[in-house]
């Protein structure tokens, strides 16, 4: 028997890392797994306070670093990472040369965001793996690690 999956108001991504088996709608913390999610701000309604010191707090400093250009099986790539404090807020691949062969196209911009998701999900989501997130590349990991090392993370 096949079920039509018009599921009523089930979880958004943000609740994926709620407790196991949680199916209820939650309004918990902003999804740390979303690559575009800004770091949560906590000073939304306090306009009266003229202080600006909170923005210079060291742990929330935003920094970016591009890792070394790495050879992988089908070309070269370099990974750029942005961190706020010690949290990765974005990963991109500004440099990718795959020679245009059919296999390495699988490593192009269509698949790279999946890697980004995986990299951030690894920090927060209570899942062990992602299915369909193909084409992880050792070169990607190597370049990312060099960028993180340069940032002291």
């Amino acid at each position: 028997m096949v079920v039509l999956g018009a599921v009523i108001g089930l979880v958004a991504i943000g609740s994926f890392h709620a407790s196991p088996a949680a199916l209820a709608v939650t309004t918990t913390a902003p999804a740390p797994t979303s690559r575009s999610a800004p770091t949560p701000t906590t000073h939304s309604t306090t306009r009266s306070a003229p202080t600006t010191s909170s923005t210079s707090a060291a742990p929330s400093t935003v920094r970016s670093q591009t890792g070394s250009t790495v050879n992988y099986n089908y070309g070269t790539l370099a990974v750029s990472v942005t961190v706020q404090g010690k949290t990765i807020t974005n990963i991109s691949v500004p440099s990718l040369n795959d020679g245009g062969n059919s296999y390495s196209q699988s490593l192009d911009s269509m698949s790279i965001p999946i890697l980004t998701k995986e990299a951030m999900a690894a920090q927060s989501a209570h899942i062990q793996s992602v299915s369909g997130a193909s084409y992880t590349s050792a070169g990607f990991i190597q370049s990312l690690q060099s960028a993180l090392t340069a940032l002291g993370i």
Partner: protein
Amino acid sequence: MTSSILDPATWTMRREEEVMGTVVVLDLYADATVSTDELSPSLHAAIHELHEADRIFSTYDPASALSRIRAGTLDPAHAPRVISDVLELCRDARELSDGWFNPWGLAGGVDPTGYVKGWAAQRALEQLRAGPVRAAMVNAAGDLVCFGVPHPGELFRAGIVDPFRTDSLVALVDLRAALATSGAYERGAHLIDPFTGRAQARLASASVSGPDLGMCDALATALCVAGEEMLATIDSLAGYEAFVVGLDGTRRWTTGFALAGVTDYDPTAGG
């Protein structure tokens, strides 16, 4: 490539191995009484399985046995026995999928690639199962297979990538064995209609769970090409279940699919 202790308290170990044109991740869960030295033989045997599969079945290496069969320079009768074993499994998958998975239906000669990655990961897992670990998961580029449980009372849980927003998840699945996902969003995927020879996908993505990852891999590819009518076929196979996202964003699944969560479908969002 690398080994590291992720969680010293429970002796969880991750190994990332560059093989088959990707990175295969092996996660091992062992009791505290088991030493890393005791784990080594089964881990090395598992990794050996992956590299052997790559050596024999690579279609990117012209010197592989499979490449030479495809080129007509190696008589299949003189090829490694494992090739005929895999082709026999592919025939089973072709039959069970009503012909929608067909390694003989592609240009360039027989190509069991759609079966081999999952098959190799399954064999790697069997090597781990024979060792001293109490649980393990192998992730071969998004095709997953596991045994045991990561923590007492807690199943392995996997996310399925949203084919329309590949930096997000569309569903969560409790995992007891294997799970493979195919989608047109993966541009490296071989989604060829074997009945027309043309590249075609009738679903945005298809995930199949079941006891064997090679079969899940083949069935997920077949389902993605055939469309949701094939859900009934999958449902009739003992132990196999499926979850699909349609080209219009609708989600459907067989009743036995171990969904632990799914995102809401908003038809106004364009999928």
